[in-house]
């Protein structure tokens, strides 16, 4: 029967209606599948090597390893499958050896000496020497390559012998290994290959010769595979390789995990984590205290330029309600944003001063000349209503800021404070908007808040002409220099305490809470994902080398 006959016999109507019913029925019943339906793992329908390949999704094509590690972040040590750096730092604040097996620092914290491992080789068999480390520094800087900024504190690098590297810094820097290890850190690149590159900015690497436990195997659009490096000096990976697979949206990643197409999904929301806990063959791991949230004040705008106003506002944050709304958060009652990771560096005297107390806030506002009129509107000393602008964006923009603002808005309304918000999708625009606003909510990764040196975020230095808060306190600025000059841990702790006292007096920011993050993984493929608790990335080689195929364990 052809289509024209259908037209004339009026059957098309029935056909259309039938198809409509089918589509509606499929939509309605799509969620009613048998949860115990066996899933097909990648190993079941592909070739043999895949059975022990770990498949990890990436969100963007640019997250697949770049063809040029010198201008992109893919060559950095944390999460570097192919390239290694001198050292890494785990989530507990402990440095772990990389290409350097040990290191020491001079008393003035200006000269750092790294002792390299003796048995490291590049993937092509050439031994790794101190010349490679010196080359990396010189090459990045002489060619003005983007990642060179990581080594901007270095004035020169010398190599007393093949396995000793000395970094001479421009200024004292007691926690300089942080710069080498994280955010983003820097890898070491092969001199014997990179020195032949004519134009490093347009160079397209096709070999990816590194030193790590995995070596480059193959790259296709949307896929990147590294295979186990059999000659790796360290722990022998139990998996045959790692495949990075492009899946651009997290909903599809979750479905792919359920279907067994991938092995892990990171940074899922608490709601998704809860829904996955009961799924067969799927485990969920909680990574504690990964992000700290704060309410920052812009100290160049009225009325947040007034210390008394900021002090009063510090009592308006109902952390318990916020933590309940967020679901995966714990209140922070210190001046240090991430007390869980800062540990002993947290000043106990500066704990609990930002308590939630609206009566106290109202009283402090009154003393500062901010009085509620008959209509409940808070008016400042100039007689004008208090209206605050809070730009939303940045690292906390994934819905968390909005939730925190919603919780804050009610209390601020009872104090007669109006709040205006604008969302910025672009990070640089958001940063500019902060200067024009009064308040901002920022989410900071824990790795940037585990040491007094991280309090430099509040300082003004020759390298940081202004900070997000527009806070400029000469005593605090001097202490940031002092803490960088001080190697002794106890002395650094004392300086850190003084810095926290100044922050508590001036209130450039009020820490709110810290949140956990969740990763979901397949339990029927590999064991060992629990190690993620100690590392910041699902691509961390320490995690991947510790994985074991389920059949082996």
């Amino acid at each position, binding site marked *: 029967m052809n289509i024209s006959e259908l037209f004339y016999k009026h059957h098309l109507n029935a056909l259309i209606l039938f198809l409509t019913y089918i589509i509606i029925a499929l939509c309605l019943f*799509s969620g009613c599948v048998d949860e115990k339906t066996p899933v097909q793992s990648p190993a079941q329908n592909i070739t043999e090597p895949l059975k022990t*390949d770990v498949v990890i999704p990436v969100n963007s*094509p640019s997250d697949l390893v770049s063809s040029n590690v010198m201008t992109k972040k893919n060559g950095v040590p944390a999460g570097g499958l192919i390239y290694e750096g001198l050292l890494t730092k785990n989530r507990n604040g402990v440095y772990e050896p990389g290409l350097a097996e040990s290191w020491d620092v001079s008393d003035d914290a200006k000269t750092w000496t790294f002792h390299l491992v003796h048995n490291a080789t590049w993937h092509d068999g050439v031994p790794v020497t101190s010349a490679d480390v010196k080359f990396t520094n010189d090459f990045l800087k002489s060619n003005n390559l*983007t990642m*060179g*900024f990581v080594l901007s504190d270095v004035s020169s690098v010398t190599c007393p012998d093949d396995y000793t590297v000395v970094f001479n810094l421009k200024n004292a820097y007691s926690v300089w290994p942080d710069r080498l290890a994280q955010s983003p850190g820097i890898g070491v690149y092969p001199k014997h290959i990179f020195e032949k590159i004519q134009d490093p900015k347009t160079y397209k690497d096709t070999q990816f010769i590194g030193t790590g436990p995995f070596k480059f195997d193959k790259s*296709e659009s949307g*896929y990147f595979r590294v295979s186990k490096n059999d000659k790796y000096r360290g722990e022998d990976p139990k998996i045959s390789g790692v495949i990075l697979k492009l899946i651009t949206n997290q909903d*599809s990643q979750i479905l792919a995990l359920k*279907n067994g197409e991938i092995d892990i999904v990171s940074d899922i929301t608490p709601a998704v984590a809860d829904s996955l806990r009961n799924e067969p063959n799927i485990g969920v791991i909680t990574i504690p205290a990964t992000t700290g949230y704060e309410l920052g004040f812009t100290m160049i705008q009225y009325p947040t330029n007034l210390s008394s106003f900021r002090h009063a506002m510090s009592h308006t944050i109902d952390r318990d309600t916020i933590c309940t709304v967020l679901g995966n958060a714990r209140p922070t009652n210190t001046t240090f944003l991430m007390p869980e990771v800062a540990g002993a560096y947290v000043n106990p005297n500066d704990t609990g001063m930002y308590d939630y107390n609206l009566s106290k806030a109202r009283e402090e506002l009154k003393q500062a000349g901010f009085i509620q009129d008959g209509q409940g509107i808070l008016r400042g000393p100039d007689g004008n209503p208090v209206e605050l602008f809070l730009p939303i964006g940045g690292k906390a923009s994934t819905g968390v800021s909005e939730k925190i603002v919603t919780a804050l808005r009610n209390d601020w309304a009872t104090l007669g404070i109006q709040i205006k918000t604008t969302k910025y999708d672009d990070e640089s625009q958001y940063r500019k908007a902060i200067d024009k606003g009064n308040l901002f909510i920022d989410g900071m990764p824990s790795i940037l808040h585990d040491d007094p040196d991280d309090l430099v975020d509040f300082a003004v230095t020759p390298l940081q002409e202004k900070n997000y808060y527009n806070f400029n306190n000469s005593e605090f600025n001097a202490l940031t220099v002092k803490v960088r000059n001080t190697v002794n841990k106890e002395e650094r702790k004392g300086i850190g305490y003084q810095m926290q006292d100044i922050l508590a007096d001036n209130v450039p920011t009020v820490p709110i809470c810290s949140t956990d993050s969740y990763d979901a993984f397949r339990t029927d493929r590999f064991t060992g994902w629990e190690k993620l608790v100690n590392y910041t990335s699902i691509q961390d080689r320490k995690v991947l080398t510790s994985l074991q195929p389920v059949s082996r364990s």
Partner: protein
Amino acid sequence: MWGSYLSRRLIYSGFAFFISISISFFIIHLMPGDYITNYLLSLGNVLPQETIDQFYREFGLNLPLSDQYCIYIQNILRGEWGYSYQYSVQVLPLILDKLFWTLIILVPATGMGICFGMILGAYSGWKARTTQDLACFNMMIIIRAIPSYWWAIMTITIFGYSLKLFPISGYTSISILYSGINIGDVMHHAILPIAVLTLTITAGNYYLMRNSMISVIGEDYITTARTKGLDEHSILWRHALKNASLPVITMATLQCASIVTGSIFVETIFSWPGIGLLTTEALKARDLPLLEGIFLLDTLVVILANLTADTLYPLIDPRVGKGVDE
């Protein structure tokens, strides 16, 4: 006569091209945010001014916008499309690579969408105000009213996850890493994106064809054909359909030009490595040379498609050509 007509069309197209790329250049450059700041903030919380200044100098972003525009036009005339910040490769080969993958889903989807839209629209218009027409019309309203990304998510959930008939995402399975590309595997991956695109394109063409058919069946020559005793089948296929198809040709050529806009959502949701996904990523990263290249390509295709439509129209309907020439 034809030579003069074509010359005029070519000159108009040249103007349109120049104005379009100028507008897109300024819109792209006036977008808030910049690549290097976003990139550095993604690495950590540091913004070394020296690195930012170096990047601006390297890509000429420190120059006044008018100077940047002049350089851009000169580069285009020299055939230089620039260098992607994000991917560290030349823009043109990158775009052409992605264009290939977009065309794999867009060409069949556009073809089927136009065919289905014309057939259903013609039938619906021919049977206007009958129950068949209403059923068709309402179904198309539902299809059109629901955004394409919702259809994409539903098809993934139903056919990819629940029924496990098709892959959830990507253009090929992991086996490409071991045994190379497999056409059958690519086609298997392409079915859902093509189906979703076809669905949305069908609905757009359906309305146009239905309206066109309704206006045609009221024409005198249809009444004349009926009074001459021609059967309905002949009137539909020989007279009505041919004349009602004219507006759809314009629509079809413009649809061929929708390389970027046509598949952004579908490619992003299906992780299909085409121009749509490339555009989304370039926008997110503020990769200006890549965005300029994509819009340049889109402008070229739209203008070429319009030129083709302008050239085809007088051939299909001589009255149009006459009108222009006179």
